[in-house]
């Protein structure tokens, strides 16, 4: 059975905890505290350490889902959790002040996860704010990071089908990259030299 550790990252209020609760087949471990920073996100609670859930995809893939705190002041948790991770679902809140900028900032912060496995962007609350569009996110990614291939979706984190699609896309990307790296590594040196 293959195992994947996937992070759910992104700014405060993007829907990370909700997404994990939607996906997880086990009771989610939550570490929420009363939110005193209502200017950043107008919600009652915020994750201060991690969320944890599990899901099995197909017959063989067990995926451990870790939600990280969205605020920079908890970046030590980012470092701890990304050590074991293979990929990240990067959630951004479409009605935030600068969702594209936040996406790029998180992508920079978690660049090593992209290198190790993959990243998928999932924009939430597009029903509240129609822009930026998927094309806007993709254009910004292409301009700033032409070397990266990052799928972009709009999602409702409460919708299981949508979140499963996002997660399966990420897992498929990770597994394809692993296969590619394995096959590249097994090529004879002389072939590589040609």
């Amino acid at each position: 059975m293959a195992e994947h550790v996937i992070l759910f990252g992104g700014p405060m209020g993007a829907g990370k905890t909700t997404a994990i609760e939607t996906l997880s087949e086990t009771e989610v471990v939550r570490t929420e505290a009363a939110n005193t920073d209502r200017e950043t996100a107008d919600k009652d609670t915020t994750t201060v350490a991690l969320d944890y859930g599990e899901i099995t995809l197909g017959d063989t893939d067990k995926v451990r889902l870790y939600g990280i705190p969205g605020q920079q002041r908890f970046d030590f948790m980012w470092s701890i959790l990304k050590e074991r991770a293979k990929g990240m679902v990067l959630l951004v809140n479409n009605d935030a002040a600068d969702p594209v900028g936040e996406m790029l900032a998180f992508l920079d912060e978690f660049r090593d996860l992209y290198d190790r496995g993959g990243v998928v962007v999932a924009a939430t609350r597009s029903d509240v704010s129609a822009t930026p569009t998927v094309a806007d996110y993709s254009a910004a990614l292409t301009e700033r990071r032409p070397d990266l291939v990052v799928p972009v979706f709009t999602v409702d984190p409460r919708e299981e089908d949508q979140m499963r699609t996002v997660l399966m896309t990420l897992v498929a990307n990770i597994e394809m990259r692993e296969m590619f790296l394995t096959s590249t590594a097994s090529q004879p040196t002389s072939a590589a030299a040609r």
Partner: protein
Amino acid sequence: MSVAPHLDPVVVDLGREALLAMGDVSRSLVYASFLTDDGFEVVHVPDGKVDANRFASMASSIQALSEAVAREVRIGSSEYVIIASQKGHVIQLRVPGHPVVLGALFDDDETLGKALSVARRCAQQLAASLADRPAAQPDAPADQQAVPAY
């Protein structure tokens, strides 16, 4: 609109008073801080020993994780967090009845039991001081009320 503890000057002053009183009775206290549940520092003493914001964030995460573990294994609510190391220990506990946590770093000059005892007393002192605050005036505008509704 309620006032967050770290933005309330009265809470900051009462917290500093409680921390200084703890330092007076414990020679092994190196650093102590009150912080909000979500990791904002309310007040700390003394200055310069520790990165105050980082300590508050880490203490918040540790507190939440300890409470998650206690929930998971069904042992009731978490009372203390103790990190015991070669050259000292960190003790954390909640201020009863408030969304505020005490985090205190002690060296190894005194026993863990003494550190626990003074930390507990400190948290209780802040809780008592907050309870003794004058009641809010019902007709006063929210931003002038004496007792925040956090």
